[in-house]
């Protein structure tokens, strides 16, 4: 059914007339339909999948014809969002489109809770002069998650409705139409998906485990918690971009199909590339640096990162969104650390100030401590961290890398002492860093590299890069890397390269740690890990 040609009339009068005529026709049809429907009701409700013929203008109380844009109704019917239903709209007659969250019939009344994203409102359908008994029964039999349009009057309530987000009003429904019906059997119940873990066990009510959620992601994403998480994640991305653009950075796009593995051979995905094969990029490292050598000075990029790590942990994905920064500096790589930490602090401040609703919503299901940070960001040196760990009873060598439990312990010690969940650890030992890390000029055992931690887990690994082709070759040989494979990389530094440094963070991990969640799959919309390729 294509766009109706009768609306193409250019003259307003003609348009208005045809609209009026159509309206009148519809009203009459509705009246007739209501009468006819009273007898034929039960039959239509029993059918599970109902598709009415397209040209059927006669609207039964239940099912509207299939909305595939045959009719442009925006002029005469404005839909009000559930979140805008406030006491100011009391006594107004409005149309609302929402999903049925729950429905409960009690004799001559039917209570519906309508939901749109994070907002819910109570709607009441009572037998009276506007609604017949069959209509109430019809509403009670509607399946959960069906999308409906209701015409209702907004009424103020004396007692707050605690279970809904819109606590001061309820809707008194006069007309109800189904836009899209849901199957009766849902793979998971939304109330169960939002229930906190402990509460579920205590009261013997169900919670939904992660695999079920991920298999039915479309429904799981409808929960208030998921909506809040991903809105916040969108905020992280936006704040990242805005802060960096304000600092004069340029956003770049780097290729993801590359000829040689950048970080190390083991964890790359291979793709067939015509007659040969290619790899999926593990990080935009190479290209960020080439942009610096190409005089862009300050660049960042947001894009997917592919790591073929066979790790089934709470914080590893095979595909995630990387937010990467690279910056040329004037005299010392600390200029770059300051820039990156300032960006992170701006992101944290932005989330704290503008996304409190979302943070509270997530905390209802997953309680956690609010995220704390210092401005300017705390920067400790690796040696201090080793001293702190040793004082706490950990035995470790001076040049030993931090294991994950040690990182967590360090996070706790720093939290104890400085009361911050975010800090930088500077001057890592050279032996545990990649070959392109610039060694510390004052101490050959250490390097100009740094890691940043949130809640005791690493979110960023960065360093000053070696920008001299000669030194880079030496370092690569020292690490036993095949020079042929990185020839293009080394060549980019042969024609004048400014000193530069940078780092990259994972969007999902940062969101997870900011909210105090425990599994990165909760903050990835359609996560990919060694065991999951769908949805």
């Amino acid at each position, binding site marked *: 059914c294509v766009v109706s040609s009768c609306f193409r009339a250019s003259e307003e009068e003609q348009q208005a007339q045809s609209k009026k005529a159509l309206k009148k026709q519809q009203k009459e049809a509705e009246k007739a339909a209501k009468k006819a429907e009273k007898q034929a009701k039960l039959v239509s409700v029993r059918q599970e999948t109902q598709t009415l013929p397209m040209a059927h203008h006669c609207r039964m109380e239940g099912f509207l014809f299939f909305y595939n844009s045959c009719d442009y109704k925006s002029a005469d019917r404005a839909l009000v969002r559930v979140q805008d239903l406030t006491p100011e709209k009391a006594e107004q007659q409005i149309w609302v489109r929402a999903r049925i969250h729950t429905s409960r019939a009690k004799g001559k009344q039917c209570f519906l809770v309508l939901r749109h994203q994070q907002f819910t409102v109570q709607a009441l359908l009572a037998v009276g002069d506007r609604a017949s008994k069959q209509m109430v029964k019809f509403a009670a039999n509607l399946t959960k998650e069906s999308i409906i349009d209701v015409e209702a009057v907004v009424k103020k309530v004396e007692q707050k409705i605690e279970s809904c987000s819109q606590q001061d009003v309820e809707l008194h429904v006069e007309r109800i139409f189904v836009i899209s019906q849901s199957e009766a059997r849902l793979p998971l119940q939304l109330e169960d998906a939002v229930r906190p873990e402990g509460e579920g066990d205590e009261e013997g009510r169900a919670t939904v485990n992660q695999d079920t959620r991920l298999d039915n992601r479309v429904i799981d994403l409808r929960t208030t918690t998921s909506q809040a998480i991903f809105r916040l994640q969108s905020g992280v991305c936006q704040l990242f971009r805005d802060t960096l653009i304000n600092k004069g950075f340029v956003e770049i796009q780097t290729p993801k199909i590359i000829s040689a593995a950048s970080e190390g051979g083991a964890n790359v995905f291979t793709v067939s590339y015509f007659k040969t094969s290619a790899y999926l990029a593990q990080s935009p490292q190479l290209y960020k640096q080439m942009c610096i050598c190409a005089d862009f000075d300050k660049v960042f990029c947001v894009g997917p990162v592919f790591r073929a790590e066979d790790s089934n942990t709470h914080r590893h994905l095979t595909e995630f969104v990387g937010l990467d920064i690279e910056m040329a500096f004037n005299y010392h790589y600390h200029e770059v650390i300051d820039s990156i930490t300032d960006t992170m602090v701006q992101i944290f*401040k932005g989330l704290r100030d503008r996304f409190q609703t979302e943070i509270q919503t997530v905390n209802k299901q997953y309680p956690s401590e609010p995220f704390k940070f210092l401005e300017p960001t705390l920067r400790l040196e690796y*040696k201090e961290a080793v001293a702190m760990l040793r004082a706490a009873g950990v035995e470790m060598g001076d040049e030993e890398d931090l294991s994950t439990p040690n990182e967590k312990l360090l996070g706790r010690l720093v939290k104890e002492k400085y009361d911050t969940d975010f800090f930088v650890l500077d001057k890592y030992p050279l032996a545990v860093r990649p070959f392109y890390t610039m060694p510390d000029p004052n101490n050959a055992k250490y390097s100009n590299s740094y890691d940043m931690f949130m809640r005791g887990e690493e979110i960023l690994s960065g360093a000053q890069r070696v920008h001299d082709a000669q030194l880079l070759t030496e370092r690569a040989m020292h690490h036993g890397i095949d020079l042929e494979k990185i020839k293009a990389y080394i060549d980019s530094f042969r024609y004048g390269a400014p000193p530069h440094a940078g780092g990259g963070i994972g969007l999902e991990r940062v969101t997870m740690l900011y909210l105090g969640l425990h599994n990165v799959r909760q903050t990835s919309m359609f996560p990919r890990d060694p065991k999951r390729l769908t949805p």
Partner: protein
Amino acid sequence: MPMYKVKPVSPGDIKIDLPTCMYKLPNTHAQGMNCGEHALQNGEVDPALKALEERQDEVLRRLYELKATVDGLAKTVTTPDADLDASTLSRGPTESVFRGTADLDSLLGKDLGALRDIVISANPAHPPLSLLVLHALLCQRYQVLSSVHVHSSVSAVPPPLLSCLGPRHIDSYARQRFQLGFTLIWKDGERVKREQH
């Protein structure tokens, strides 16, 4: 009146062969109990039993004391840093960890290369002015790396408070060059807290 006579079912003098593998218990039904048992049945307490009870009480008491000691230790272990309420420091004689400058020197001598940091949290609404004096004194004697941070619990701090410890040191990028760190955190809290590792 003569009663109905029943023939005896078993003769009263059967010889029972007692098994030797079981242990013998004294016959409770036999006559002739000794005086001690008789006394017990009257409610008086055997002195041996009383001694046992006292021992048990003693053990329980020691257990409670031990538990209290462990609890106290646990508190100090989880917060290894001296978490002093410095608002009382100004009133009484300082009972700080620094018993003298000699102690501080020896403390700083350990862990070469790792900066020893003193962290002080204060509320910007009530800035502790004595801290500035302390800081100035420390700077006279040692190479102090001072830094000021604003905690996320506070939204804005007036600029003079941010630079109260003086301008940023030229060498502040190399923390290990300093003997002592002095970190001031402006935070939303009731008291001035000092933590030192």
